[in-house]
């Protein structure tokens, strides 16, 4: 019997040799896998950006908790600590009545009326509370209501509700798109690899007749499929990242308020995901394609 490692080396040699031998078929298969992976890659990049956008919007929801007048600084500090410990609170910031007035003034612009307001400031002290996730807004607001010294709690309820709904739809769409495109990729890849297997059905038939085991027959095809997947993944990943970097640069100047995942942050996870997908696709495609020709 052959030792395990030398058998493996032989499979590698066979797979690699046939990769070179069936040149045209290989090019066709690799191109198809590349296009399939590109499509999936775009869906993933798009999905990641949608998620990123949703997450950014989610953390920008703010709740304001107004405090009753005449609280001592120690009381204010205690309440702030308590608020920070509420689940779902990302940050809490004390806004003094003077500061609140200054903000209002900045927003409305200086006008003679402000001089009057400044004399008897009607605004109370307050906390600006940011939540980790917009979906937690209602719960956090409820918990704030119960804190000592908190008189009133406000937040843009409708805006938050709509934001929650929109981000949920965005996430679902990104997921569905990725799943659907992956399914299409599997079908296309399996069919392409079936062609390379059909081109060698005679070899498979003879191997079976002379008593090669099914795994012995499969391995070279699996290795070939995985190599094709790897090459395709690297090609698709490179093209995708270049296009993405270009698009991101363009968008950053055009739409600066739109939060995008930077290309650098995307590179590693995307390449790893694509190589993983490519190799898995190649292996699965070859396996399915060869199985049709194995009679036992």
């Amino acid at each position, binding site marked *: *019997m*052959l030792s395990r490692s*030398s*058998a493996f080396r032989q499979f590698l040699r066979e797979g690699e040799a046939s990769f070179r031998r069936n040149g045209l078929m290989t090019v066709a298969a690799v191109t198809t896998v590349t296009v399939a992976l590109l499509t999936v890659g775009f869906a993933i990049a798009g999905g990641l950006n949608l998620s990123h956008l949703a997450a950014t919007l989610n953390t920008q929801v703010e709740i304001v908790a107004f405090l009753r007048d005449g609280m001592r600084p120690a009381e204010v500090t205690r309440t702030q600590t308590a608020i920070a410990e509420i689940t779902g609170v990302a940050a809490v910031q004390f806004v003094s009545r003077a500061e609140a007035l200054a903000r209002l003034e900045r927003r409305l612009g200086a006008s003679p009326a402000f001089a009057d307001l400044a004399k008897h400031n009607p605004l109370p002290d307050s906390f600006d509370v940011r939540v980790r996730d917009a979906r937690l807004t209602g719960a956090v607001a409820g918990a704030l209501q119960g804190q000592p010294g908190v008189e009133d709690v406000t937040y843009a309820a409708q805006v938050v509700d709509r934001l929650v709904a929109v981000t949920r739809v965005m996430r679902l769409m990104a997921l569905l798109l990725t799943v659907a495109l992956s399914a299409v990729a599997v079908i296309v890849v399996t069919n392409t690899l079936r062609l390379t297997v059909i081109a060698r059905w*005679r*070899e498979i*038939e*003879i*191997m*079976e*007749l*002379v*008593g*090669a*085991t*099914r795994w*012995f*027959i499969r391995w070279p095809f699996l290795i070939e499929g995985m190599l094709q997947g790897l090459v395709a993944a690297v090609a698709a990943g490179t093209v995708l990242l270049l296009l993405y970097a270009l698009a991101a640069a363009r968008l950053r100047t055009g739409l600066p308020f739109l939060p995008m995942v930077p290309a650098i942050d995307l590179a590693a996870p995307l390449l790893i995901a694509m190589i993983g997908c490519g190799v898995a696709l190649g292996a699965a495609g070859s396996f399915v394609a060869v199985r049709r020709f194995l*009679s*036992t």
Partner: protein
Amino acid sequence: MVQLQRVSKIYPSGLTALTDISLRIDRGEFVFVVGPTGSGKSTLLKLLYRAELPTHGRVLVYGRDVGRLRAGTVAGLRRTLGVVFQDFKLLPQRTALENVAFALRVTGTPTSELIPRALQALDRVGLAHRREAVPAELSGGEQQRVSIARALVHDPPLLLADEPTGNLDPDSSWGIMQLLSRINLRGTTVIVTTHNKAIVDVLRQRVVQLADGRVARDQRQGLYAVPV
């Protein structure tokens, strides 16, 4: 060596290929299976190398029930059987030597043994001098010899030949049948399906005649057909 016990084969299409066949072939026998096209000759051989499974009955090869082999052990059975076909089934881009060595290589034979053993098998069929020729450069008879060498390379106790002379001219056919007889004389059990009346009548071996999937005649030192 080979035993069929009340074997029937009905294909999924509903075609009945064999009906209630019982047959026993002993070690060292040479058996011709004859009968018109569609009488079930090829199906009979396919049951032996487990390309098909019997619908009813048992097929025993070397005492093992072929129909109940697990999928993983079929390869093991095939290594102990030589099979030869009408269309040779050679790989066109490989030389005679490579075609024979292929059978060794894909069954995990150490690389150092490939060439000596393949050459030895080619020598047994008298083609060692044509080892570097690809199938297209060989005559039909020579191609069939290469495929016989490939079938013999594992030294199988049993050799199955499905119409081995079906594509050959009379002279080449003679050569192939004489080769099969020689292989049989060295102890290998040989089962041959054929239409070749002249050869069957000259060799006077055991003849199993099939008709409509049944054994119509099983005769020692038989002729292709019963003289009328």
